[in-house]
């Protein structure tokens, strides 16, 4: 069952067009990776889906409802969770306060219950509740960013380069956690990633974007075993 459809998205910043008619879809409980060279419009696509930038043309359909022009906080209420590449935590707030803000739309009891679940996935956060988020390591911030997004129990998670700037070990931990989130919490996930090998290994399908357009689409395993695509987009 398709839960998200982005049809012919034309979008960009102010008046400059970055995406020239990109289409993607996502099935229920599916993990999809979007790859492509720098400037392909991957992050722009996530921002457009989330409602941060203007969609000049095209539609975003969420479970049959047109949500193209909803604002980000309205999309959170619909079931979207978003973890940006940079600025994924509130640095001056404590870890606890970050999680509380993640559950801003939820009641107190729900926040308590969700925190319990989040600590099962991210036990390190429980030990750092009173620490300012700005003092955490890159990997811990990424964990906190994902934990914050999970506080609303979203059906869909949009992850923008979750391993960016992380050490190989931290990156591996992050992808293990993403796989865990998908497995245990049954989330549908869209990942934008430079380290496409790790991302594809936990994905069902993959889209390749080039210059703001769809270039290619296939099962993740097929892409990993396709030498031409590997050479072109995964560095051989």
């Amino acid at each position, binding site marked *: 069952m398709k839960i998200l459809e982005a049809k012919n998205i034309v979008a960009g910043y102010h008046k400059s067009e970055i995406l020239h008619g990109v289409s993607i879809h996502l099935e229920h409980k599916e993990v999809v990776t979007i790859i492509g060279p720098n400037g392909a419009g991957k992050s722009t696509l996530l921002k457009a889906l989330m409602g941060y930038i203007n969609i000049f043309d095209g539609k975003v359909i969420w479970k049959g409802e047109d949500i193209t022009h909803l604002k*980000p*906080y309205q999309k959170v209420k619909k079931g979207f969770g978003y*973890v940006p590449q940079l*600025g994924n935590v509130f*640095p001056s707030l404590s870890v606890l306060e970050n999680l509380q803000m993640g559950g801003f739309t939820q009641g107190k009891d729900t926040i308590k219950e969700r925190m319990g679940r989040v600590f099962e996935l991210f036990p390190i956060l429980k030990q750092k509740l009173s620490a300012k988020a700005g003092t955490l390591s890159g990997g811990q911030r990424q964990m906190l960013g994902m934990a914050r997004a999970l*506080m609303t129990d979203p059906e869909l998670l949009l992850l923008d380069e979750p391993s960016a700037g992380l050490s190989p070990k931290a990156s591996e931990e992050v992808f293990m956690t993403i796989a865990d989130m998908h497995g245990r919490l049954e989330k549908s996930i869209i990942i934008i990633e430079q380290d496409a090998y790790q991302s594809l290994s936990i994905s069902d399908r993959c889209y390749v974007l080039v210059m703001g357009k769809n270039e290619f689409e296939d099962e993740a395993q097929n892409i990993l075993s396709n030498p031409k695509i590997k050479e072109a987009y995964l560095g051989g």
Partner: protein
Amino acid sequence: MTLIQVIVNSIIRASELALLALGLTIVYDILKFANFAHTELAMVGAYIAFIFNVGLGLPIAVAAIIAAIATGLFSILIDRAVFKKMRESTGIIVMVTSMGVGIALRNTVRAIWGPDAQNYAVPLQKPIVTAWFRITPLQVWIIVIGVLAMVAFYLLLHYTTLGKAMRATSDDPALAQASGIATEKIITYVWFIAISFASLGGVLIGMETYIQPVMGFAIIIPVFCAAIMGGIGNPYGAMLGALALGLAENFGLYINFGKVLNLGGLLPFSKDFYIPTGYKPAISFIILIVVLLVRPRGILGKKKEG
């Protein structure tokens, strides 16, 4: 004047300034522009209290509360009509616009009530006299209200969802939205809180002295100085800055500079030289310049983390 009297006067001044500087700094923190209409809105609040106190005969405390609410709501209207349309503009453009808004407010009040000073209907106060200092009941109230406002603001920021959402919006408005926070709603609350505090500050200053259309313009430098000295964008900095400025202004008038300047008779300066009271505002100017030169981010200047 005793040293303790100077300290008491400083605390009174700090309490008034803190109410104004706090609002200025939180608007800056969330909306990233220096609102030059801030003290003019305090003046508007002082005049709204005047309507209810002198015009309708209500007690000044009731008039001050009504004025704080009315001015807070009025600031939301101004935001919707002017500043909201400029959210994507740079700070300097919005700042200049706020100057325009301030001038418009000042001249509108002048057109309605005239340029002359007016007084609230407050009975004459018998001062409380001790061996070390004297203080009027009104001044005691100014300190109490100032301290209560600071405590209330601290509790708001750290123990309420709204306060945490305000801090989250200040940290990263885009991420706040991704957390389901309607940042425009938060901005509305920020305007209301900031300008209600400012209005209260304006009424307290008016009660101690008088109200006049230029009163907002007259206090703009001390208020900016307190906010910048503490570290603009940091509410606790605004409180600290107000206290530091209050002390500096009052000690500036208390110190005998003659003794400092003549170096024990080595230089031809009079033995007694005090800064005349009329030059009190100059102290804020000098402090502002020194702070901007030596430590532009202020005492508790917000270091951007992450």
